[in-house]
């Protein structure tokens, strides 16, 4: 009896390992088969303004339009440059607002069980169809402090009893969606750029550690956000094995 149980367990473990190996092969094979890609970016239309830490009641996050900054165009440009060594990148058209409007469910298992909402959007909204894959870059979420979520591009202030701290963030995730079946081959949120700060977000962010006033603050903010994106994009695409040498 015991021998049968052990044999059964061994068979189950072998099946899982072989199945997992097969799954990896499938993912790697799928990536290798990709020749043409289109890039969709939808993180840069709005910037959130958030306060966390010692705040008062009714402290809700606000947002403002930054579409004039052209961050999505910058992302497409940077990603095209990075991916061109391996893929033939073709320009695509899409409704950016439709991609930006999709949100994860607050109930975590729902996100695991439901079909990825971006699959359908790529199928119906991106032109031209028929490319081998689409790289879709959208907003990601992170906790700030204890009871607050921040997402996408934003400016946050963390208040403590003795000092206030400012943060900028560019939180995004990248999906590789297969162009025929529209399966999500790979999905990855951009990781933090470093571990040198004590205020950490689950994505590219930088701390503002000095206050000054100036007429060109918006330009500097745009440049700082662009810097976060420019430095994190090669790392993220490298982690996804989409570019070499990372």
């Amino acid at each position, binding site marked *: 009896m015991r021998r049968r149980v052990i044999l059964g367990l061994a068979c189950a473990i072998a099946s899982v*390992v072989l199945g997992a190996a097969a799954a990896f092969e499938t*993912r790697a094979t799928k990536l290798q088969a990709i020749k043409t890609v289109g890039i969709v970016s939808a993180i840069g239309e709005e910037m959130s303004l958030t306060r966390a830490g010692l705040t008062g009641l009714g402290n809700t996050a606000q947002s403002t339009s930054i579409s004039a900054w052209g961050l999505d165009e910058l992302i497409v440009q940077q990603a095209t440059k990075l991916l061109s060594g391996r893929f033939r990148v073709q320009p695509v058209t899409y409704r950016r607002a439709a991609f930006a409007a999709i949100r994860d469910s607050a109930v975590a298992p729902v996100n695991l069980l439901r079909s990825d909402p971006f699959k359908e959007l790529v199928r119906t909204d991106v032109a031209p169809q028929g490319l081998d894959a689409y790289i879709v870059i959208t907003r990601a979420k992170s906790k700030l402090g204890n009871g607050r979520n921040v997402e996408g591009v934003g400016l946050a202030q963390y208040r403590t009893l003795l000092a206030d701290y400012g943060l900028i963030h560019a939180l995004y995730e990248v999906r590789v969606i297969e162009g025929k079946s529209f399966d999500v081959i790979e999905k990855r949120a951009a990781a933090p750029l470093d571990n040198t700060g004590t205020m950490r977000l689950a994505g590219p962010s930088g701390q503002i550690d000095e206050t000054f006033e100036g007429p060109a603050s918006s330009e500097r903010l745009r440049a700082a956000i662009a810097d976060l994106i420019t430095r994190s994009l090669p790392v993220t695409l490298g982690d996804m094995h989409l570019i070499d040498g990372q």
Partner: protein
Amino acid sequence: MKHIDEAALRLTVNARWTTACLAALGAIMATAQSASAQTAFTLPAPPFELPMLPSPSGNWTVMVGIGGEYTPDFVGSKNGKFLPIPIFTIRRAGSIDQFRGPRDSASIALLDVGNFRAGPAFKYVSSRKSSKYAELTGLGDVKAAYELGGFVEYYPVDWLRLRSELRQGFDGHTGTVADVSADVIVPLIQRLTISAGPRFTWKSTKATAPYFGVDAAQALASGLPMYNARGGAHSVGFGSQISYRINPQWEVHAYVEYEKLLGDAADSPLVKLRGSSNQTTVGLGASYSFDFRIR
């Protein structure tokens, strides 16, 4: 650029803050250039990946450490013991450490809308061996209990956490336990946080009797009077903790939890004659975090 300038003017309440933040960018340009990924080591990509699960490639943070806790020998005891507590966590780099109270059960937030979280909770209650402590002589052993249930957590403001747990016991006791707590979380500075707040615990009869009841045989063997412990308000208390992040790698923390037993638990002859209704736990620890990378 015009959009954000106009918006900042429109948001009258936030105008000063927004302007200050927008203006505070000079230093970013300097710090951003110097920041770079710092990982202790890089591991090769695994030879396979599990279906349905995300690839492990990328940066991970490991936290290792050691702590210690001086806690009552058993609930109701007037003597204490020191327990070493290993600290180990592994998570995606950048995942945020949520505030956690020393009395919180292990839990997973399946529902998370920012200021409201909920999900399953689990607590292990170690066994109570009568042979280990003289006060328990004759009372018999209580097996280890596994409490399964759920939690809800709400932050009306970022610095106030209200948490409640409801758990059903298995094995050592088969009763129901409810914990309610509130914590005011005050970041003094970015690296130093203190928190404190009240606690309350309710237990059903089946969760109380195995630890505080004395049946006829036990009365005979222990010399304690027979006692029928029923459920109800179990304890009220107060807890406080402090954590200081020395640098991004090192963190130290300390906490104290005081609990006053109530109701039938406090009136139990085990507590009244041989123990104490005042229960204090003191703990401290240090941890070191480092990042590694999987290709």
